[in-house]
Each structure stands twice: as C-alpha cells, then as structure tokens.
C-alpha cells in the first residue's frame, strides 16, 4: 500500500507541476500591457532584411526621428524570410507591427481586406502630399483612399560590362530590343565549344515582374477589367517572343543557368555581359566586385517606346494599432522630406518626393542617372488584387516556354487559364 501511495503522490506531483507550468505561461502572457504607459510610447516597425548598408541608413533615420520625438520609441523588427506570409499571419493573429513595409505588388490585395488604416485623415498641409510622384502615390491609393506613402522606388536599367563591350568592338549601349539581340550575339562567348557559353550576352529574370513592362508598348494587358489574368494575347506573344528566342539561342540566360542566384551576381562574376536589373544592384557591385568596370543605360526601347518597371514600397499603418497618432508621426517623418533625405542619401533607393530628388541630384550621377530617367515613364509593378496568383502561374509556365518545353502561346494560355480558375475558386 505504501508503494501505491507513493505512486499516487508522484502522479499528483507531476500533475501539479503541469498545472504550475500552465499558470506560469498565462502569467507571462498577461504581462504584456506596455504601450501607452505614461508619456513614453513604443511604435513597432516591421520590414524585411536588407544589406548592412541599408540597415545602417534606416537606423540613422530612426535615430533622427527619436531625437525629434523624445516621447516615441521605435522598435524595429526585421522579418528575415517570407515577409508577406509572416505579416499576413500576424495581422490575422492581431500581433502585427504598428507600421510596416508593403510592396505595391501586394497592396491592392491587402487594402481590400480592410486591415490597413486609411491615412487621409492624418495628412496635414505640412506633409506636402503633392510633392510625391503621382504614379507612385497612386500605387497605394484605392477607391480614392490613401493607404500608404511610398518610401522609395527602384527602376530597371541595363547594366553593361565596358571591358567586354570593348573586346567585342561595341560602342555604347543598345538602343532598341533588336539591337540588344545583336549585341547579345556578339557578347556570347563559348570558349570550349560545348554548347554552354561561359559568358552569356544578356542575363535576365523570367518573372512577370521583370517582363510585364514590355506588354504595354504592344497594346497588351496583364489583367483585364475584372482583375482577371488577360496576358494570353497575340500582342503579349509579340512582346515576349524576343526574349524567349534569345534564351533558346543561348545568347541570353537566367541566373540559375550560370549557377548564380540573381542577375547582379551573374553580372559581377562576368557570366553575363549585360543584365537588366534595378538600382539595388549598384551597392552590391560596389561592395563585392570593385574591379568591375561597368556602366548603366536606360532600357532599350520596346516597339519604339521607352519602357521600364518601377518597384515601390510604402509604409502602411495597421488598423489594429493602439498607438495610431505616434505611428503616423513615424510614417510622416520617414516619408517626409527630412527622413527621406537621410534614407535615400546614398542612392540605394530613389526618393519618391520630387523636392528630395532635386536636392540629392541623382539624375546627374553617371551610374544612377539611368534609373532616375526611367522613373519618368516607368510602370509600377502592380495590377489589381489577384496579381500574386497571376504572377505565380505566369512564372511557372513562362519558365517552361523559355526551356522550349512548350510554345510561348501555349504557355501563356495555360497560365491564364490556371490563374483564372484559381482566382474564381478563391473568391
């Protein structure tokens, strides 16, 4: 009997420990009542990770903000991977940051769900909303409501290797896509003759984000009136066929074909003599490939028209935020003249305010001038709330067209069909 009693005692002990542990948990979680204690307010700011250089600039900007607003502390958090998945999940759980980054690409979908705070009421004359470049501002304006203010933007331009151009006897960047093809042919080098060039003429990315800007010049659309996929048109085929042909002729290649992660790396390692990339590539090349002699140029014209893509990111406010006033202070500082000037001072990204752009004068910069020039006619990477689905299906099918597994026409048709089926099922 004594044994039994001991056993019982042990059992009760174990259970007791369990209950104790649970109580401990609940105690911890209930101790989270900070926020608006006294005069000090903490604003959470979430974004994705970036280069150390960018982190430092952001920290400088935030330090300047905290100095100007001594009662507001900014808690900056970096979401390292799968930013949108994490952010959406946190929004559902009510744990999202007060202020966070939002890519224009995802903005329509997220604004639709009503988790973003409309910012119109907060805007004062002092903020000078007219100073922003309109296309970038409109990327975050839905049904007349402004949900975010663009913190910066990037455009695509052509990077070309000056040394390789000289070796191939080429002078200056190509002006049209036809010329680009000729150049690429001359710049492709297959020394050992095994059919796999060691140096490709052009490195490019196959994603819709890097291809869509060619469609407009031919009169093709990415999405239709009801936000459904609508890229399977003859015009779109005309716009995209040149790059497919170049890839199949092995004068253009994807970064993965050359064993690199992305275009900048491919260009830096001289596995491609030209790449189409954004201004984020500039600091990467400066830091990692100091000996590389390269130049940038506006993208060659598509069907006689200038075209490039613009990628922009805004600061948006969480509708569930408990510190909205302070959050607005942060947003208005970061996207205001003072904050934006610090943030874009090194040209890692371009300022969205015209006054700041003028002040910094990147249009005069030999490397960055091409990106600024592109800003005038760039199309923002955005096309309705279903773009993530459309993008995913396009990317999958376009890859197989590039590999020659199916014709471009088939690929686009299949991608459009699948995307529209998915969109219909999801709504």
């Amino acid at each position: 009997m004594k044994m039994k009693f001991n056993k019982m005692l042990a059992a009760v002990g174990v259970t007791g420990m369990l209950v104790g542990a649970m109580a401990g948990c609940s105690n911890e979680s209930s101790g989270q009542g900070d926020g608006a204690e006294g005069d000090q307010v903490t604003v959470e700011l979430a974004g994705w990770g970036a280069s150390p250089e960018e982190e430092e600039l952001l920290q400088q900007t935030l330090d300047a903000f905290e100095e100007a607003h001594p009662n507001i502390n900014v808690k900056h958090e970096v979401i390292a991977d799968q930013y949108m998945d994490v952010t959406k999940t946190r929004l559902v759980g009510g744990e999202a940051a007060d202020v966070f980054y939002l890519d224009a690409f995802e903005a329509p979908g997220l604004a639709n769900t009503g988790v973003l705070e409309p910012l119109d009421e907060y805007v004062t004359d002092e903020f000078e909303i007219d100073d922003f470049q309109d296309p970038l501002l409109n990327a975050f304006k839905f049904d007349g409501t402004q949900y975010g203010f663009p913190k910066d933007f990037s455009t695509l331009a052509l990077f070309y290797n000056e040394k390789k151009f000289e070796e191939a006897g080429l002078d200056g960047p190509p002006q049209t896509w036809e010329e680009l093809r000729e150049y690429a042919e001359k710049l492709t080098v297959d020394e050992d003759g095994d059919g796999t060039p060691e140096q490709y003429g052009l490195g490019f990315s196959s994603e819709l984000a890097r291809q869509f800007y060619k469609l407009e010049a031919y009169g093709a659309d990415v999405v239709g009136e009801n936000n459904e996929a609508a890229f399977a048109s003859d015009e779109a085929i005309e716009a995209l066929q040149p790059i497919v042909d170049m890839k199949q002729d092995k004068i253009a290649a994807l970064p993965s074909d050359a064993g690199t992660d992305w275009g900048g790396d491919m260009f830096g390692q001289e596995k491609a003599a030209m790449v189409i990339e954004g201004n984020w590539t500039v600091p990467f090349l400066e830091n990692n490939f100091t000996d590389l002699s390269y130049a940038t140029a506006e993208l060659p014209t598509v069907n006689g028209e200038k075209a490039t893509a613009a990628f922009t990111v805004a600061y948006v406010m969480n509708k569930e935020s408990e510190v909205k006033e302070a959050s607005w202070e942060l947003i208005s500082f970061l996207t205001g003249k003072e904050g934006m000037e610090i943030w874009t001072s090194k040209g890692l990204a371009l300022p969205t305010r015209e006054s700041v752009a003028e002040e910094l004068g990147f249009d005069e910069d030999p490397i960055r001038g091409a990106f600024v020039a592109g800003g005038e006619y760039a199309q923002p990477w955005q096309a309705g709330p279903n773009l993530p689905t459309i993008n995913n299906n396009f990317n999958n099918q376009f890859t197989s067209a590039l590999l020659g597994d199916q014709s471009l026409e088939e690929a686009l048709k299949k991608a459009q069909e699948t995307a529209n089926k998915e969109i219909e099922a999801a709504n």
Partner: protein
Amino acid sequence: MEPARKETPSHEPDKSKKSKQPNKKQKPKRYMSKGWKEGLSGYLFMSPTIFTIGVFVVIPILYAFYLSFNDVQLLGGIGYEFIGLENYTRTFDDSRALIALKNTAEYVLIVVPVQTCLALLLAAALNSNIRGKNAFRIIFFLPTVTSSAVLTIIFMWMYNPDGLINSFLKFLSLPTYNWLADPDIALKSIMIMNIWATAPFFMVIYLAAMQDISDSVYEAATIDGANWWQKFIFITVPILKPVTFFVVVMGVIGTFQLFDQSYIFSGGSGGPNNSTLTVVLLIYQYAFKSLDMGYASALAVVLAFIIMIVTIIQKKFFGEEKLHD
C-alpha cells in the same frame, strides 16, 4: 487462469452457482476499486501527455476537419461560412493539386523502394564481420543526425551547375545536369538527397532486427549447403518481413509528407515549373500565402485519407498476422 478452471468443471446445480456469485461479486468489487485507483494514478501520470497531445494533436485534427467544410475568411475579421463539400470538389478542378499529387506519388514510388532496399543491403553488409564495421555504422548514420534544412542547403551548393557533383561528373566524362533549375531534374535531385539521408535511419532498424535472428537458423542452412545469397534471400528477408512492413509504412508516410526539402529547394514556390510542388507544400501555400485555411484543410484531410488507404493496402500486402509474431 485458476478461476476459469474452477468454473468449467463444476456442473453443480444452480443453487451453488448462485451462492458462489455473491462471493464473486464482492471480490471483483474490491478489485474494481483497486483497479480504479490504479487506473486513476495511471491517468494522472498520463495527464501531461494526454493534455499535450490533446491540445497540439487531437484538437487541431478535429478543428482542421471542421475547417475543411468551411470557407474561412481570416484577414480583416475572422469569418466562417459552412459550404459543405465545396472545398473537396474544388480539389478535382485544381490543376496544381493534381500536379502536386503526381509529383508526390512519383516521389513515393521511387524513394520508398530504393531507400528500403538500400537500407537492407547496408544493414546486411554491416551485420557481417567486416573490418571496422563500427566506424562504418557511425559514418553511415551521420546523415540522419544532420538537420534536413542544413543538409538541403549543402546539397544545393553541391548541385550548383559549377558545383561539386557536376565537376565530378565532368571529371568522369559523364553528362552534367542543371540539378536545381531544370524542371525534369529538380525533383530527382531531391529524391537522391532524401534517399541518401533517410536510408541509414532504416538501416539501423534493420540492423537491430538482424541481430535478433538466431545463429542456429543460419547454421542449419549452412549444413544444408546454402550460400551467403541464399541465406540472405530465404532466411534474413522473410524473417525481417514485419520490420520491412514498418520500414515501408514509415517511409511512405514520411515521403508523402515531403515539405522542407522542396520548400528550401524552390524558395517556397514549388518551382521550377511546379516540378518540386508537393502536396504539403501546396497546403502550406494555400494556408499561409493565400490564407485559404478551409481549402488547405480540405487538402490536408485528402492527403491523410490517401496515406491511410495506402497503409491499409500495404497491411494487406504484407499480411497482418506476421506483425504479431
């Protein structure tokens, strides 16, 4: 056994039976209460586990089942709408679900037989009296100890077009492949990696079972003039049948649930061209990229159902009675 024996021979009149019964009744009563006490302490001991499994396994399973019949709205106000079997009928019309299922089935059909055979052969080799077998056992088991995420990243380096594997193939004048970016090859790259990493785990299970086989059986076979191969095929393999059942079932379940490797390989997209899209990866995409929990749950239930059916088929195939030997 004793009470039963006492009862059967007694063909006494009903009276005695009746008189016995009250006695009997009293005894079980005491036993019952004792047993009840035992049971209570047993349950108390189990309560931490029951609680944990209940909260983290049983309730989520039931909840997922419930979700699969609903259209779940998560962002901007949580809302459920009962839509019956709509999520299930949607799977038939979802071409990506079919691709994912095809990829997963292909993966299972290739990986499970290969890794099972490889595990058996490795175990047989290490069970014989070769030199340094302990060292080999450790070396072979190492991949299993490595975290699968780390393993995948290292393999991705080796699979790079200019990486170790292609350099090696080039050195041997064999054709090289674009292991990561070619849609025809990408899934096979994951297969190779997974077979290499999982086979040793099952090898250890086989090895343990092999050491349980009595030497006398092999001695008898030797006297009958059986050679090494005959002993392996006619003694080792049949005796190991229950273990093989376990290895195959666990292998099938594990491979059907392939997620981490293809997630890391494709950066979560299942690309290139959906070639590494598996069912679990698709569930992840629907659940966390599209926040379509209802449909994702339905897919998860379908996957569980498929695994269940396949396991039942295997049970029939291997013969149930062998399990209880």
